[in-house]
């Protein structure tokens, strides 16, 4: 029986079991790529640990699918540690994942910049170091909607996480060492910026209530990926006007060189169909070219989501030949697959 409240219509058996039951399904669907370690609540690449290969793990709250479990596989992550919906996993999960994938060449923790994720990963990295595993940590913080200063928690980690996992995964698969893989993630994070907008909130299964109400004709600008309100609310304009805001926010902060080659990532928040995401991509492509920036690679689809939120985010990554080669390298995961 599905569960229905005033604001929630979801396919659930028990709201408290949604994460575990979904992970079970992920493993049932993609048993050729990954396995689900029920006791530790982690998703591990089927052929992990690979001796001599740097391993990559990431994790965070659930509700952002396919992030991160859908990115476990060849050329991307070695393990994912999913927490409860919108809640960081606990250190024991990251530690178990680290131990499960360590092939002797070290493990990189890719962490989205949220206080909970950062704190729990920090405790896990300390425990892993105590057990003699070489761990490096890279915090992703690409969201230009958030002011970065000494007096805030800093920028959130959003779309660049997906790009960093793909690109660094390719580097690790190609035999790069721990320092090189770590540096690759840092380069992606340094050269990527994101901005998100929302046309609705979303409903976490545990509460059954929408996180906020958005009146008709309004848009939330500068949202993250937890159904939270954005930096400000504005009257909803045309798609072209909305994309103007997104492109301007990203480009004015990234400041790519004239003639730069970029990867443009138009991401759906979970409730916006591809019909609209491609419409947005068309606008993005045109506006970037007008600004003298060349989108030579792209990704369009819902890859880092906020449950059923209607909305989209734009991530622009400034590329070089090395990053293009790593982006094009083979990948085989539940959510991304090419070259194999």
């Amino acid at each position: 029986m599905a569960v229905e409240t005033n604001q929630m219509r979801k396919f659930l058996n028990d709201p408290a079991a949604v994460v575990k039951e979904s992970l079970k399904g992920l493993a049932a669907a993609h048993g050729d790529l990954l396995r689900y370690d029920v006791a530790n609540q982690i998703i591990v690449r089927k052929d992990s640990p690979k001796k001599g290969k740097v391993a990559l793990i990431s994790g965070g709250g659930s509700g952002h699918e396919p992030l991160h479990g859908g990115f476990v596989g060849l050329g991307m992550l070695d393990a994912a540690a999913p927490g409860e919906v919108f809640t960081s996993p606990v250190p024991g999960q990251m530690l178990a994942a680290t131990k499960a994938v360590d092939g002797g060449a070290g493990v990189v923790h890719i962490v989205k910049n949220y206080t909970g994720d950062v704190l729990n990963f920090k405790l896990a990295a300390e425990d892993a170091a105590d057990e003699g595993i070489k761990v490096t940590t890279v915090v992703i913080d690409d969201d230009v909607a958030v002011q970065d200063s000494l007096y805030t928690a800093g920028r959130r980690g959003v779309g660049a996480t997906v790009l960093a996992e793909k690109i660094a995964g390719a580097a690790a698969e190609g035999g790069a060492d721990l320092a090189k893989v770590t540096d690759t993630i840092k380069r992606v994070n340094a050269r990527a910026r994101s901005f998100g907008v929302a046309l609705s909130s979303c409903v976490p299964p545990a509460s059954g209530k929408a996180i906020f109400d958005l009146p008709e004709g309004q848009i939330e600008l500068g949202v993250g990926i937890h159904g939270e309100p954005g930096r400000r609310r504005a009257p909803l304009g045309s798609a072209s006007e909305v994309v103007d805001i997104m492109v301007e926010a990203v480009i004015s902060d990234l400041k790519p060189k004239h003639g730069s080659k970029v990867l443009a990532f138009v991401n759906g928040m979970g409730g916006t169909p591809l019909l609209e995401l491609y419409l947005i991509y068309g606008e993005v492509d045109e506006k970037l070219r007008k600004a003298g920036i060349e989108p030579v690679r792209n990704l369009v689809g819902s890859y880092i989501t906020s449950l059923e939120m209607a909305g989209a985010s734009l991530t622009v990554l400034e590329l070089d030949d090395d990053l293009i080669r790593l982006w094009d390298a083979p990948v085989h995961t539940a959510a991304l697959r090419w070259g194999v």
Partner: protein
Amino acid sequence: MDAATISSWMREIDSSVRAERDHLVQLDAAIGDGDHGTNMVRGFEAVVQALGADNGSPPGRLLIIAGRTLVSTVGGASGPLWGSALRSGGRVLGDQITFDGAQLAEVLAAALASVKDLGTASLGDKTMVDAFEPAVDTLRARIADGEPLARALDEAARAAEAGMRATIPLQARKGRASYLGERSVGHQDPGATSTALIIRALQRAATSES
């Protein structure tokens, strides 16, 4: 006070976060992501269970077990923050079988110090520190003045509640609410709210037995 005080404190927290669960979720939904009530309930339910299974550990040890349990069950920011707070507090007591008001104040001071260290938050950032720090300062001062423990704890709980209410007009500078910038103004901080519940629970646990 002894091990029973700590167990009773944890049970009092469990029942008050359970009673206030929806309120905490609502406060968190306004400026965060709406999981604070659910997380605190999950954590303290596990703490009560862990302490129920314990066989005669001294009070400091119970706090360390409680802290470990929070770290391993809560996730989010509150798991590591309250987890390391209780562990640091527990270490202050060592293997002592009993403790007095002044030592309790030192337990809370050590807990606060570890929250501030791990979370890098200061008074006025619109976080749990805004409720925690006034409570610790008040308890220390009243105990030093020779006030009876029950009254000192009541005043500490009032200070936490005042600190909690004082977060309403503040703009968040740490934690998830900081992403909202000016829009965080006008909302009471959920972390400060659960902290005030935790201090009030301590007052109830310590006074019910004296």
